[in-house]
């Protein structure tokens, strides 16, 4: 805390623009729980073609939260082309600097921005947050496997996707995905 700037502290304790936008023009998820930080970033353009609103959700340390909060503030009012020029150093500078060991938080912000812009330009929404680090399997892949094959146990998911077949630390998340997909299916059924 003592080597965070006041600006970081402020954005951590009073984060701006927390949440998810409905029907965003661009969205991306980067990072993973295994890595220790993850970020979901969404934005919407206004009638003038500029970024009118942006939101984030972050799992991570104080500087991850602050970097995401800063990013949402920084992009507002910019065109996509202008926003595209924001670097991770810009994010860190906006916050008055980040400790060396925490610069990766600004990098994550930059990555999310990039991926969300790509999504806006037509790439599939990158909800590629890795769930299983051991086998490099994203949440979306697991979701698909569960819903398409009506899977109900982690073991089944492992059989279909390999996810969960290594260290086992992702089992809880896989179980969460199963629960969610099943409850969604119940609703729709």
């Amino acid at each position: 805390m003592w080597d965070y700037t006041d600006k970081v502290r402020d954005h951590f304790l009073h984060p701006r623009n927390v949440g998810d936008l409905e029907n965003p023009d661009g969205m991306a998820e980067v990072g993973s729980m295994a890595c220790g930080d993850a970020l979901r970033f969404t934005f919407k353009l206004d009638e003038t073609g500029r970024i009118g609103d942006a939101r984030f959700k972050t799992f991570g340390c104080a500087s991850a939260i602050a970097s995401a909060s800063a990013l949402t503030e920084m992009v507002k009012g910019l065109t996509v082309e202008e926003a595209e020029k924001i670097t991770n150093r810009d994010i860190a500078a906006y916050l008055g600097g980040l400790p060396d060991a925490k610069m990766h938080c600004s990098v994550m912000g930059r990555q999310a921005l990039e991926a969300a812009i790509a999504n806006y330009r037509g790439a599939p929404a990158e909800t590629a947050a890795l769930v299983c680090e051991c086998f490099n399997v994203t949440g979306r892949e697991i979701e698909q496997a569960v819903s398409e094959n009506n899977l109900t146990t982690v073991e089944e998911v492992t059989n279909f996707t390999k996810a969960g077949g290594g260290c086992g630390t992702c089992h809880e998340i896989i179980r969460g995905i199963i629960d969610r997909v099943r409850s969604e299916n119940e609703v729709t059924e």
Partner: protein
Amino acid sequence: MNVVYLDNNATTRIAPEVLDAMMPYLTGDYGNPSSMHSFGGRVAPVVEEARGHAARLIGASPDEIIFTSCGTESDNTAIRSALAVNPDKRHIVTSRVEHPAVRELCLFLARNDYRVTEVPVDSKGRLDMDAYRESLTDDTALVTLMWANNETGVIFPVEEAAGIARERGIPVHTDAVQAVGKVPMDADSSGVDMLSLSGHKLHAPKGIGVLYVRKGTRFAPFLIGGHQESERRAGTENVPYIAGLGKACELALEHLPDMNGRVRRLRDKLEQEITARIPHVKINGDTENRLPNTANISFEYVEGESILLMMNEYGICASSGSACTSGSLQPSHVMLAMGVPFTMAHGSIRFSLSIYSEEAEIDFVVDKLVDIITTLRAMSPFWNNDSRPAAGR
């Protein structure tokens, strides 16, 4: 702002009585105990009195007590000594969850001509005794196992492990830095040959420790130089801190019942209230066999540093893993060894109480935590606002 200090496994306040015991040697009585004038010589008995108190606390005799500069030095000394007196044996047995003062040295030795077996623990942090038994070989120079874990408080069956090693003639060291003063201890009957403790975990200052070396144990000094500590640890004696540590040991013995009664109940209350009022939390470690002051609690789907820093806003001190590992992105090696899933490992917080902890503090912490976890989960992409995990999205 009032500080609510629940980080006593990281370091403790110096007890006022301890400071009082130190003050004469920080002011007028600054002599060197090895001097030939009585101004110096009169502080020599102070050192010996402290040695007696340290011995009594851990069930040893005074000449088995060597004062060192910290727990790390005690650990390093013990391990290096065991290897030095037995140069032909090249194998060390330890656990996966040792403090860096043991673990990093073992990893260093593993890169330098030694074989190191890290005995695993189960999901509750309990030592795998079968694996332990199997790990011992004729080439084993030393077993080093912590008495109690700094992150979870889990107590290892060190005495049983020592018995098994001794049957095979293998010397045993235990890092008892977290256990001393929290649970009763009798080094003499424990079967261990060497035992480390550190002053700043029991209300003495940072920068003083003890290595117990059982009578008759072959020993090679680590710090080489003058004749201090019966030629077992060179360097002018840190008289003020030694006097302070002596007093701290005396007090710790007195306070053992409070620690194992009132403090244990406060810790239990903390855990019960948190699990009752916050969903998706988990107590890490073997709750049957634990230090009375330690609670290691995982808050799923949120990250530890954020929790710590939000608590910090309320003056609440705790830690995430050990102080040493805080700030790194990796969950602690202890959580990893226990196979705690990342969802929980990243959000694990250690609360460690002391005899100075009070019930009102516990109530305050629980109240604030409810808010903090709610706030952070609202920001988490892995959590839905209807209080359910949103894993995988």
